[in-house]
């Protein structure tokens, strides 16, 4: 007797598919948005004195949904609509940060209030949010399409909305996000260390969530756990007692 449950192709599950087809199609985009909102609640705002909008990493969504390709597609749809902004964080070429556009706008303007760069930043945001879904800008684009002058570009870099990529091109960025990245990397390393140090290099997800956080981990444990699961830095195995996270050898971190 084979204990393994056999894998069955879709073609042989006709009846099941007919029943589920109706509800799965409509829920697609709404699902991602609700997952994003859930993940945003895990982000600790107080840590940054409310100066940062809630930031979620794209691969955290992979830990909540099975099909990575459809997650990517829906994120791109939301970006095209102008609801979501994506940023390249810089420490990993594959790690992208997602922020809701309205949150970004309110926080940036809040941070800029009273400074002389406010006008330029407002103009930039007005150009950016409805139309453009790029992650980086180079000089010709800034000068010709957006009609910014060189001193205006310097003001934008000063305000933190743009960061230098290389000579003549800039990444779109979140102002004051340096602290976020620093805490994030430290926290990720600490959580991975917790998984590694546990007996046999594996720990139940519920147990890890209940672990007391060391001083290195500034964010909520759940935030970090979604992140390491989605980036496949730990292997998640379904067991009868819940999800087990096993440390994967060969990680750079």
């Amino acid at each position, binding site marked *: 007797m084979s204990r393994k449950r056999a*894998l069955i*192709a879709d073609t*042989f599950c006709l009846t099941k598919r007919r029943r589920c087809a109706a509800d799965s199609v409509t829920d697609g985009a709404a699902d991602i948005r609700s997952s994003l909102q859930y993940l945003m609640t895990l982000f600790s705002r107080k840590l940054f004195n409310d100066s940062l909008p809630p930031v979620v990493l794209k691969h955290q969504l992979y830990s909540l949904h099975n099909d*990575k*390709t459809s997650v990517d597609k829906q994120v791109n749809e939301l970006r095209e609509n102008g609801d979501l902004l994506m940023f390249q964080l810089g420490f990993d070429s*594959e790690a992208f940060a997602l922020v809701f556009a309205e949150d970004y706008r309110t926080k940036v303007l809040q941070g800029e209030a009273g400074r002389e760069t406010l006008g330029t930043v407002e103009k930039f945001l007005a150009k950016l949010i409805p139309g453009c879904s790029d992650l980086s800008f180079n000089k010709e684009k800034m000068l010709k399409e957006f009609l910014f002058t060189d001193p205006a570009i310097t003001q934008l870099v000063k305000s933190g909305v743009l960061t230098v990529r290389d000579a003549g*091109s800039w990444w779109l960025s979140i102002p004051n996000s340096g602290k976020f990245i620093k805490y994030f990397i430290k926290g990720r390393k600490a959580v991975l260390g917790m998984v590694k140090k546990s007996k046999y290099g594996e720990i139940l997800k519920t147990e890890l969530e209940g672990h007391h956080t060391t001083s290195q981990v500034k964010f909520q444990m759940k935030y970090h756990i979604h992140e390491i699961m989605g980036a496949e830095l730990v292997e998640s195995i379904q067991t009868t007692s819940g999800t087990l996270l096993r440390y994967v050898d*060969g990680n750079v971190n």
Partner: protein
Amino acid sequence: MLSFLYARQSGLDDPVRLRRAESTRRVLSLELNHNRDVDRIHGNGINTLDTEVIDGRYMLSGGSDGVIVIYDLENNSKKPQYTCKAICTVGRSSRHVHKFSVETVQWYPHDTGMFVSSSFDKTMKVWDTETLKVVSELLCYSSHSALLCSVLAVGTKDPKVQLCDLKSGSRIHILQGHRGEILSVRWSPRYDHILATASTDSRVRIWDVRRASGSLFTLDQHNGDKSKASSEAVNTAHNGRVNGLCFTADGLHLLSTGTDDRMRLWNSGTGENTLVNYGKVVNESRKGLKFTVSRGCSPEFVFVPCGSSVAVYGLHSGELITMLRGHYNNVDCCEFHPDYQELYSGGKDCNILAWVPVLRQPGIEDDETNSKRGGTQAAINPAFEDAWSSDED
């Protein structure tokens, strides 16, 4: 399954549909088979496997010790327990054997009279299968090659692709364009003149060998969206070395794997990244990785060696279907047999493992009860047995 048979019989369905459905079901139930074994000849890791196209009966394997072995895969004994015997070997004692590791072996595409092997000892040898002697030898600093009709494409360490003609034994021309060592070369199964090459400079180039000018296009992972990548990574296929290429059976799509732990699916006509996300495909190989795509199934599957197991992904959905575990060490190559839906994989542990579909095995209890009844019932095909009717009526 019965509904498929009935639909085919009554003409409701195309005959191909039943074949595809059954092939898919078989591929999903691939398992390491206790009954099927492959002779263990290699003393060192196995780098490459190739099955011939005509019958699917003979398989070539090339190893790190320079040894080349030919196996007969067909089961002529009536028993289920079967070892694929090695018919002939080019061993270390042969005069013509390669000095160093054999990286690619390939059968001549039209018959089994000839095969080609390329190795790290900077030679490419063309062998006659009958006598196991080298017919012609080409000196080129290469380790990866692909054969189509009589044109051999060799990827070399100085970054150029050399095309050689087997009929005359001479070199035809050189394709320039890459900036790093070429790790994988593949001909398109759809068009005779299209060649894809992957190299350590993170680029994959598609060439039309009839043209004298450079490559047709380079595959770009961001599809021309220059803003996504850092400036060095613009126009690259991967963020690291690209070490594996495989065309799908219809030649419409190309898969590439890279050391950035990603696998990408490209449209081979336009060079567009289809953005199917396979997740992290662990890839630590410094040399070429040989992976394969299934043929004849309805959602096609990709079999990629990942560390010491073979990962099976759905081609267009990107989901990880299963991991085939069985090797003791790194898996280097795998080969899919389209007629029987079997997978052969070879690795550093010097074993070639056969993964055979497991379906509807007759239960041992049924055989016993049948013999108890004194053989009054002829063996009933399990497809026609049902679970509700009683035998007493």
